[in-house]
């Protein structure tokens, strides 16, 4: 990487202010402020329906939002592909790679957005070095010529992360990257994310508490579209508001040894059903066009 590029990355940070996403009067995201700097592996947690995915959708131009989201430039109002060219990359809750293309072709396309248009008309003669490097990093080198559609779920998630690396995203927004992975795969993914976070800004939406405790540098807790707590893992898990609205009585947020007493914490006001396991079983969200298209 050139010195200029290193310098540029050193000043990267995401600054979200007063973000509001309005679905016909329902504020799925309701005035969120969020600042994430490079080198800080940030986890975004919250019950099912808290608005985590919607925040990512808003930042990446998939959903209309008001307020501001700055990563070098103001992202709100930009077309998705321009946001991506500004260095923002994301993954989806349900891995969405291009199934009919091989692993290599997926990575090559992701690497290609800055290629000159006319060079697209030529066939790939050799594997670009950044693609080779990414194949190694995500451990899919031996599957390079496999159709992406035939990969296991965890491998698809890795491929997506690999695609973000080759497209040189400087802000990575990962929506539940370890959902459905085995313990060992989670460990590998976590280490990979920690490694990437040294040079890039990362926000991970996650539900798995074990994973969070092992790898998060800091945590933002979202509830009903609002940030209710932010800080280190220890700070957040000690926050009474968090325990009350998110963790619930049976959540194993704290490590087994320091698990809170089994009795239910007092819940004031009308209680909202709290998040439990079902998050995993939510029907996959379809990617909808960012602007009102007349698609069937």
């Amino acid at each position, binding site marked *: 990487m050139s010195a200029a590029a290193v310098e540029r990355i050193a000043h990267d940070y995401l600054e979200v202010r007063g973000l509001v996403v309005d679905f016909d009067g329902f504020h799925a995201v309701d005035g969120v402020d969020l600042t994430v700097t490079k080198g800080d592996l940030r986890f975004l947690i919250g019950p099912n329906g808290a608005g985590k995915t919607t925040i990512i959708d808003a930042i990446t131009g998939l959903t209309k939002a008001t307020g501001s989201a700055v990563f070098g430039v103001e992202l709100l109002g930009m077309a998705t*592909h321009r946001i991506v060219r500004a260095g923002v990359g994301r993954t989806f809750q349900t891995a969405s790679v291009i199934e009919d293309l091989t692993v290599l072709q997926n990575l090559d*396309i992701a690497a*290609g957005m800055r*290629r000159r248009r006319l060079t697209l008309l030529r066939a790939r003669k050799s594997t670009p070095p950044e693609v080779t490097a990414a194949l190694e990093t995500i451990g899919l080198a031996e599957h390079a010529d496999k159709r992406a559609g035939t990969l296991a779920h965890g491998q698809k998630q890795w491929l997506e992360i690999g695609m973000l690396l080759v*497209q040189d995203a400087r802000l990575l927004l990962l929506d539940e990257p370890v959902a459905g992975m085995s313990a060992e795969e989670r460990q590998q993914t976590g280490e990979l994310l920690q490694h990437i976070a040294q040079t890039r800004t990362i926000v991970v939406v996650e539900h798995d508490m074990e994973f969070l405790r092992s790898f998060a540098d800091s945590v933002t807790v979202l509830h009903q579209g609002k940030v209710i707590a932010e800080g280190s893992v220890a700070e957040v898990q000690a926050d009474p508001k968090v325990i009350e609205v998110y963790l619930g009585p049976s959540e194993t947020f704290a490590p087994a040894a320091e698990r809170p007493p089994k009795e239910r914490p007092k819940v004031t006001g009308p209680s909202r059903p709290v998040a439990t396991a079902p998050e995993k079983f939510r029907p996959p969200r379809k990617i909808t066009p960012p602007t*009102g*298209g007349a698609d*069937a």
Partner: protein
Amino acid sequence: MKLVWQSKWTLWAGLAVAVIAVVLAPLLLNDFRLALLAKYLCYAMVAVGIGLAWGQGGMLTLGQGLFFGLGGYIMAMHMKLADAKGGVPDFMSLYGTGEVPIWWEPFRSPGVTLVAIVAVPALAALILGWAVFTRGVRGAYFAILSQALVYAFALLLVNQQQTTGGTNGLNGFKGFFGLALSDPANKRMLYFIAAGVLVAMVIATRALMRSRFGELLIAVRDQENRVRFLGYDPAWTKVFAYVIAAVFAGIGGALFVPIVGIISPANVGVTPSILFLAGVVIGGRTTLLGPVLGTIGLRFVETQLSETYPAFWTYFQGALFILVICFLPQGMASIGTWLKWLRRRREVTA
């Protein structure tokens, strides 16, 4: 899915077969049959473009008659003007004001004509594609829009009898760039030109499908919105493929005119536009040669059947269409894969 164009070997084998077929045809067929084959080759050019835009790019191009017609009418105007030797084309003195309209004038020049045959369909597709794809119009909506446009185009041609020949279209050509069309040797040469152009289009399409652009086009077809998150604007990828398909259709239309001797609204309207697609469906839209072979085969059967049983043809075509869509959604080109699957299944159950 196995892709026919993937190996070098199949390319060379395919090319060899094509060259042999092209050379043998004039020896085996009489002049009448050869002219028919040349006509099928023009339709096949449209089909190659549809294979790219629809098979590879997912755009249901049900309005290629528009571009076929643009190319065809431009060529026909030039040939009419050339026949008139600086004067007024015959039909204009009969039905019109007896004056050549101003927008015909540029096509007196052979150079302008040749450029326009490529440029006008390209420009039309560029504007249309830009307007449609950047607004996210897709699928059935795009198909309906294409059909409406081609309907309007045919209607316009019919209504402008003084300048377009109306329902009769433009016909009765005598020469083609200085060559007498009455000479069978020149007719044979037209066949070779059509064959050469078609082979060039197939080779160019193969190169495009294998290029990074071809991969991107598949990505856009399968997951248009995902591609935005890779930093591409999918609209322009589609527009480019659409423009190529339009240019192929325009060239096909232009060569159709001297070969068949007529271009009329009946060659460019709604029905011909659907027929352009039929050969592609039957041959296999995602393959390179499927659209070509499907189109030539279908048109051949059409001629045979409609000569002997004119009423039967329509039913036959409908039945074939349904059979292919139900049992071979990837077209005849997938018959090999299908047979292999059957055999494997028998082995498993045996």
